[in-house]
């Protein structure tokens, strides 16, 4: 694929720290190679800003290969940008055109305070995991990986749920600021497998309760989460969480 160069106008949310108010700042960028990733484009901007003695735009990133879940921003109203099943770091500039105006905003939700610029505090998701996203394992020698038989279809469903990288795009895009896709995926992944059975009921109760306590909204089945999820985690996992929760609440 041949690479071109494009010029862009960026409108980026700048916020000094969690207490400041923040506002949009406009930047022009010229000669951006369409072979660059979105984050590399931001790197170029930051180099320019640093060279001019200005504060670079803070944004989260780590692996830059779409597997760690650190990166993320809302580009023109869509979390992780316009390409489906793509994290921001894997989004390439060839999907944009010369002269585009890109409005870049941090992932937002009541449960996601903003640290700085595009960096959002997503630790509320960690606290949901802490509440029940674990299995208990007896100490001793390493168990044989294939000692517990698991049907292939079950393993596949668990793996699909486990594809969640916890980036928080589901929360950011949800009109209700709900974290049900994330929590549903984590609960599903463990409740499907034999290793997750001992804590199955406490897990469903604890994780759902923590989700509410953290200030996330309620799911009204808008499907926005599934549409922006870089790993296409299905809302079938939310349905499974609902079943797990009702079972745990009714049968104790």
């Amino acid at each position, binding site marked *: 694929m041949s690479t071109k160069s494009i010029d862009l106008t960026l409108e980026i949310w700048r916020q000094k720290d969690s207490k400041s108010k923040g506002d949009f700042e406009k930047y022009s960028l010229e000669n951006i190679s369409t072979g660059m990733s979105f984050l590399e484009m931001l790197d170029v901007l930051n180099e320019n800003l640093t060279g001019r003695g200005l504060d670079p735009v803070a944004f989260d990133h780590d692996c830059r290969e779409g597997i760690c879940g650190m990166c993320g921003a809302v580009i023109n109203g869509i979390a992780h940008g316009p390409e489906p099943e793509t994290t921001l770091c894997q989004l390439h500039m060839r999907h944009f055109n010369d002269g585009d105006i890109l409005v870049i905003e941090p992932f937002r*939700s009541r449960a996601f305070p903003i640290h700085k610029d595009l960096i959002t505090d997503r630790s509320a998701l960690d606290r949901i995991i802490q509440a029940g996203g674990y299995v208990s394992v007896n100490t001793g020698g390493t168990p044989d990986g294939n000692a517990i038989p698991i049907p292939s279809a079950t393993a596949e469903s668990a793996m699909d749920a486990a594809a969640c990288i916890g980036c928080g795009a589901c929360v950011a895009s949800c*009109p209700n600021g709900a974290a049900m896709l994330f929590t549903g995926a984590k609960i599903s992944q463990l409740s499907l497998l034999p290793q997750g059975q001992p804590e199955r009921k406490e897990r469903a109760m604890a994780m759902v309760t923590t989700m509410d306590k953290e200030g996330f909204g309620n799911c009204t089945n808008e499907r926005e989460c599934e549409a922006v999820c870089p790993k296409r985690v299905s809302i079938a996992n939310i349905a499974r969480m609902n079943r797990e929760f009702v079972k745990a609440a009714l049968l104790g």
Partner: protein
Amino acid sequence: MACSGFLLILFLCSHAAGNATLFSSVALFQAYADMLHSHPLIVSMFSKGLLLVFIIHIVTGALLFLQNRRARSQGYKVQRRAVKNSQASATMIYSGLTILLFVLLHTYVVSFGNHKTIGETIVNLFSSFFVSIFYIVSFIGLAIHLSHGFWSMLQTFGINHPRYNSFIQRLSYLMPIFFLLIFGSIPLLFLFGTGQ
């Protein structure tokens, strides 16, 4: 929300079946109404139960709307949806309020209005063009509400399985259209003078 929605759908089914007698004749409809009212205990139990279900549905719906608006206290400068066909789900509270307005007016007329027989009331009511149009517009609101509500209810109950999803999807189109046709054709019937 989903439980009360389910009960409301059951009510719609029975109400649609009852009203369908009008397709035969006003006399049959009158006989159906008289038969119902010859069991005052049943009528009173069902109407009070229905009122309760409606109140539960409206209160939980309003709470949900307000809680979620607060959870999304921080919006975006560019508001866009990645999902296509999200109009019905994004406007549940408004389609719901349209139904509420309709239900209030409708109950006022048919249950508390002064009239001789219910059959006559219906004939009088739908002789007015504007009343008929208002009814039809409300039924369209109901169909929109259900086009999200029915599927949403099943998803909330945890009913989501690759084997049934395509069937559920078809049903989510057909069911609102079914109710729209049954309820909507009654005012049309009288408007065009074919009801008797």
